[in-house]
């Protein structure tokens, strides 16, 4: 069974209007650039995007917001995006802000076949409104449900033809969790190698979770906050 696709357009050809997408990355780090560009080109509409952030105005998910492809955004932090704020305040965009650990764990729950998890994050805050509360050992937790997403779209460093993935440094972030959580998981990687070339001991996402893989092109890997020490420091 072949999992390898030529490019983002082919790997994403059945993404449909109204689909629920999980999109990997933290800030602009480890985002599936090629896939996002392909979705923008395809102009798929009414998407629900679950992603820690919403990109910036002219990069990442920000591009999808510019084209008004996103109906609802589920994220933990969106503070770098003027167009996002505009759509939110105008009511064009539905937004569900949730704690970052909750976001991560709701992905993991889906990938691990756990329908719901308990977390203390958000207890006593507006995040808890309408949610089931439960006390264990004198500590209060919220019941949070596993995500039920149609597609997971992730970015890895290396992958093999069987769909095994390895991430690099902090570009790992949400990617392995989302990879586990999609009904269909599409991975773009910087390099596709033949099965057998990656050390089985170092696989971050086993291929069983990955349905489609392709080698992404022309990664920009934009840096949001370029902080450096001068050599003189």
């Amino acid at each position: 069974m072949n999992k390898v696709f030529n490019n983002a357009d082919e790997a994403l050809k059945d993404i449909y209007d109204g689909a629920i997408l999980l999109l990997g990355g933290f800030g602009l780090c480890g985002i599936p650039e090629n896939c996002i560009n392909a979705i923008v080109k395809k102009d798929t509409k009414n998407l629900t995007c679950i992603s820690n952030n919403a990109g910036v105005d002219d990069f990442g998910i920000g591009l999808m917001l510019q084209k008004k492809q996103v109906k609802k955004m589920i994220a933990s932090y969106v503070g770098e995006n003027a167009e996002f704020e505009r759509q939110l305040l105008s009511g064009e965009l539905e937004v569900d802000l949730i704690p970052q650990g909750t976001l991560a764990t709701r992905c993991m729950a889906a990938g691990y076949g756990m329908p719901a998890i308990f977390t203390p994050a958000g207890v006593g805050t507006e995040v808890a409104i309408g949610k089931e509360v439960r006390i264990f050992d004198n500590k209060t937790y919220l019941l949070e449900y596993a995500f039920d997403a149609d597609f997971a779209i992730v970015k890895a460093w290396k992958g093999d033809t069987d769909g095994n993935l390895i991430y690099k440094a902090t570009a790992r972030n949400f990617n392995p969790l989302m990879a586990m959580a999609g009904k269909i998981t599409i991975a773009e990687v910087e390099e596709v190698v033949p099965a057998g070339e990656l050390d089985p001991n170092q696989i971050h996402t086993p291929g069983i979770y990955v349905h489609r893989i392709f080698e992404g092109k022309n990664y920009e890997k934009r840096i949001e906050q370029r902080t450096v020490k001068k050599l003189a420091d």
Partner: protein
Amino acid sequence: MLNKNQIAQRLAKELQDGFYVNLGIGIPTLVANYIPEGISVVLQSENGLLGMGPFPFEGEEDADLINAGKQTITTVPGSSFFDSAMSFGMIRAGKVDLTILGAMEVSETGDIANWKIPGKMVKGMGGAMDLVASAKNIVVAMMHTNPKGESKLLHRCVLPLTGIGCVKKIVSDLAVLDITNEGFKLLERAPGVSVEEIIAKTAGKLIVDGEIPEMQF
């Protein structure tokens, strides 16, 4: 009155050898510059790193290596990368010894608000709600008052909460305070700041017990 770097310097005195520490965005990030001699701490960045190092030298930035503030960084020997579920897993499990973060408001019962100003600003809570709900030792770095001079140490928070009953200590530009069952307890005052000024600028219940020493750095 302390400047941001002095607040960070005072906060650094909360570090103990062997601590795993999560530093929030802003002043808390500066604490890394003041780690006392002879003390070794490991910095956790909730986007998936233990063993965060200083900023890279110019030209050595790696877009795949950032901290939770999206800044380019480096790693120190003994570092490890992991996914966000494990990152918040170790936070929830209480493995992080100390969390230092900023706040817009703190209440005398240890509630904290730092993620939203209704109608004005909605950036999101990021990892702050997870951190404050889970960490056993939460210290807040903040200005004692807002630009209008109004106290940010309140009886009850006015802004939407990030977490309840979680803050243990505050280091502000004016003072160091514990949160106790009886309210804010003044521990130290900034050099040149009087107890009277702190009392005047603290809206929540404040306990002043005996002589209040000046901060030592």
